[in-house]
């Protein structure tokens, strides 16, 4: 494929289709809307279906149905819309239906929503937070693989800078390796065989072939998430080996932090940065290692301090953790405010560094 100038939303849509997504249902909400529009434009051409779901709840349940029937499927929204999907995302995690949720958020204030959720029960959602459009394309393709590999709903946590920035990108199918059998798929052929299939959060099974029931099933699902936590965390870092100050940031904010930290590094500051690429599972062990020698662990996020919890849990020395982020919203409510800006971030970091570069 040639390089195209694509809005992030359109690039992600291309990536989803390249990853085999053939069903999409969504409801407009800025800045996610462009992704829905791209899907509605592109999917029919590849034999897929894009539905204008009448609401987020209906959309995510259509997707749950399509996914249970064996199709790679996705939905998306942001903020309030994702809040409305909580019940269903939890349900899918517990009944093990794989699909992708594109959370093209308005800001970074939904870290808890993605990583702890407001669904019910013991479930987790793999959440990738790309730093730019190019990475969002890669993450999208990876996510369809992870969803199916682990039979779970997964989240891409984007933002306006991902959704609405246009960049030159190339989208090509990626092979992420083999996947397990899909013998759980509902295709209708089980009827009358005595071995008809069932997708059911309670996992009671059939009278002739009882399932584990909720006690054992939910424990098994919790164990599965523990296993995912142990293997699927991803991160990126630089200069942490000798850094006295490590700045932790996720998503596009990490791009800004990287920019500022590299600048400061060039000026002689012993500073490094750490970025959780997966917000869940949080790369805790890596963060512990990255902060072992640090005197200061700064957390920069565009919210009131949410990832802060995970950093506090995993920083080598909890007392070294300082929050330097904050809530910052454009007047429209639809984008970041002034804080998402390299010079401002630079000032915030310098404000907590005692003295000059030597420190």
């Amino acid at each position: 494929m040639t390089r195209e100038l694509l809005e992030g939303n359109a690039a992600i849509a291309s990536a989803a289709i390249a990853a085999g997504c053939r069903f999409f249902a969504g409801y407009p909400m800025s800045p996610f809307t462009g992704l829905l529009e791209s899907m509605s434009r592109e999917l029919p051409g590849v034999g897929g279906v894009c539905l204008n779901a009448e609401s987020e709840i209906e959309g995510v349940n259509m997707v749950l149905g399509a996914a249970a029937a064996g199709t790679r499927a996705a939905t998306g929204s942001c903020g309030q819309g994702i809040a409305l999907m909580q019940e269903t995302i939890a349900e899918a995690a517990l009944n093990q239906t794989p699909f992708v949720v594109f959370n093209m958020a308005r800001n970074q204030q939904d870290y808890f929503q993605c990583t702890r959720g407001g669904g019910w029960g013991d479930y987790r959602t793999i959440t990738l937070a790309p730093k730019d459009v190019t990475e969002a394309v890669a993450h999208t393709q990876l996510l369809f693989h992870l969803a199916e590999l682990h039979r779970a709903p997964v989240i891409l946590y984007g933002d306006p800078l991902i959704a609405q920035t246009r960049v030159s990108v190339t989208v090509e199918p990626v092979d992420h390796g083999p996947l397990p059998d899909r013998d759980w798929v509902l295709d209708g052929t089980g009827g009358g065989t005595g071995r008809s299939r069932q997708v059911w959060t309670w996992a009671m099974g059939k009278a002739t072939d009882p399932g584990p029931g909720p006690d054992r099933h939910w424990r098994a699902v919790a164990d599965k998430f523990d296993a995912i936590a142990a293997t699927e965390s991803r991160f990126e870092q630089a200069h942490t080996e000798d850094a006295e100050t490590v700045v932790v940031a996720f998503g596009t904010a990490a791009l800004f932090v990287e920019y500022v930290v590299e600048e400061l590094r060039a000026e002689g500051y012993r500073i490094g940065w750490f970025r959780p690429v997966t917000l869940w599972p949080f790369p805790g062990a890596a963060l512990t290692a990255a902060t072992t020698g640090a005197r200061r662990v700064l957390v920069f996020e565009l919210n009131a301090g949410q990832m802060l919890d995970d950093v506090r849990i995993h920083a080598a020395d909890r007392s070294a953790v300082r929050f330097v982020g904050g809530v910052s919203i454009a007047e429209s409510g639809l984008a970041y405010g002034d804080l998402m800006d390299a010079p401002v971030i630079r000032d915030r970091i310098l404000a907590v560094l005692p003295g000059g570069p030597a420190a």
Partner: protein
Amino acid sequence: MSRERITIDTSGPPRVPARKVADPRPSLLLGEHSLCPGCGEPVALRLLLEVLQELDIVQRTIGVVGHGCYGSFVRIMDVDVLQCLHGRAPSCATGIKRVRPECAVFTMQGDGDMANEGLQEVLHAAARGERITCVLLNNGVFGDTGGQLTATTVLGQRTKTSLAGRDAETHGYPIPVADLVAGLRGSAYVARGAVSTAGGVAQTKRMLRRAFETQLAGAGFSLVEILTMCPTGWFVPANEGPGYLGGSLEQSYPLGELTT
């Protein structure tokens, strides 16, 4: 009690020449249900399974079941089934049907599931003309949670949350789901039956059959509302269920086909 009664031996097949005209249970049933004595829902289940068998679509059918007493049928129907969230069955069924148009897709939902939690789901699916068949088991109460007022509880009906009977002033009017659905252009077949009498049972089965035929013909959305007894949620003895149904639900929700 005192009069002698001649009782025929019914412990095994007759020893005189005879032809079996009705089996107790469809072969797609995998076990016993645990619903209350006199409940109407198992009858509806039987009809549904018989229709699938008679139309010979058992091996290309996918069911989506909501939350209510009928939810436990998931354990005993030999059909591929998604147990979905309360109210969401029509959306799940939509997703399934759109990616597997060759399958027959149905939902089984109660009045609480369809007229309360998921009213919007079924109406939107009907308006879209989704080629699915929704089956509403309407007993006018939340049976599974013990008999509270739903959007279909009829005026005057006593429930645990309308102790003095449903009163329009406070609780509003009951919603005739089938009528509402029939008013949407995407609806190709809409009917209302009841399982309170043998005749009603036979009629309801014909309705279910036509609904699935409509779906298979690709004509659009189909819905069969089935009035079912819930003696437990109505606080009446099991044997008063059919009479209660006839005097309450059936008065507000006349039986018959609503599409032409």
